[in-house]
């Protein structure tokens, strides 16, 4: 299982999914109307490292985080 966490203002409970890469996650999340806008402006981290490829492989126990636009300070 891969755990999906939605950070900051994305008001969504974590998901546990049987997926093997980010492409599969994109397909699943795009089906949800409420998530579409967040997907456009969110960065993605796997096990707390930001990633830039949809081919990023996922294995059992991995954690994927979605990071919406930030504003510290």
């Amino acid at each position, binding site marked *: 299982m891969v755990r999906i966490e939605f950070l900051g203002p994305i008001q969504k409970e974590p998901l546990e999914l049987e997926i093997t890469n980010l492409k599969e996650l994109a397909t699943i999340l*795009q089906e949800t109307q409420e998530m579409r806008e967040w997907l456009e402006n969110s960065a993605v981290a796997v096990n707390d490292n930001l990633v*830039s490829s949809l081919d990023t492989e996922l294995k059992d126990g991995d954690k994927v985080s979605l990071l919406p636009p*930030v504003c510290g300070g």
Partner: protein
Amino acid sequence: MGIKYLYSLLYAVDDMLELYDGSLDVPSILERWYKEEEKSNYGAYIPFIGTIRDEDDIDGLSFDVYEPILESWYNAWVQKAKEKGAIIKMAHSRGDVMLHESSYIAAVFSPKRRVALEFIDEFVEDFKASAPIWKYDLKDGKRIYAKDRSTAIKGSGLLS
């Protein structure tokens, strides 16, 4: 007092990220940082202090912080500073911070002023664009995401 702050006292790691619940005690943080480095032979100490302004009828701001990625972002800047013979320090709030209080302090110490002046600019700008912290306006008893003032992290939109 945050756990990391306690660690920093125990192990005397002077460039550790400090997170606090609520507003920052600006005079005590600036004084402590000064004392930590006053004999370190740095010629320049340049702090940046962020203060909550009274605007748009807000009562204050509130912050969510994602610590694992904030730490790795911060540690990368510690290394960049080290390469220039400088050190950085940073404190940030979690939760609510009211008007005219401070939620953010960053500082650079360097042997000569030019490095610190340039570094504080780059460090604070990248903080605003990349650090995983989310800001909310506190208004009429509600906590409203400051979407219009937020910046998408580089590489966003991968899943869209």
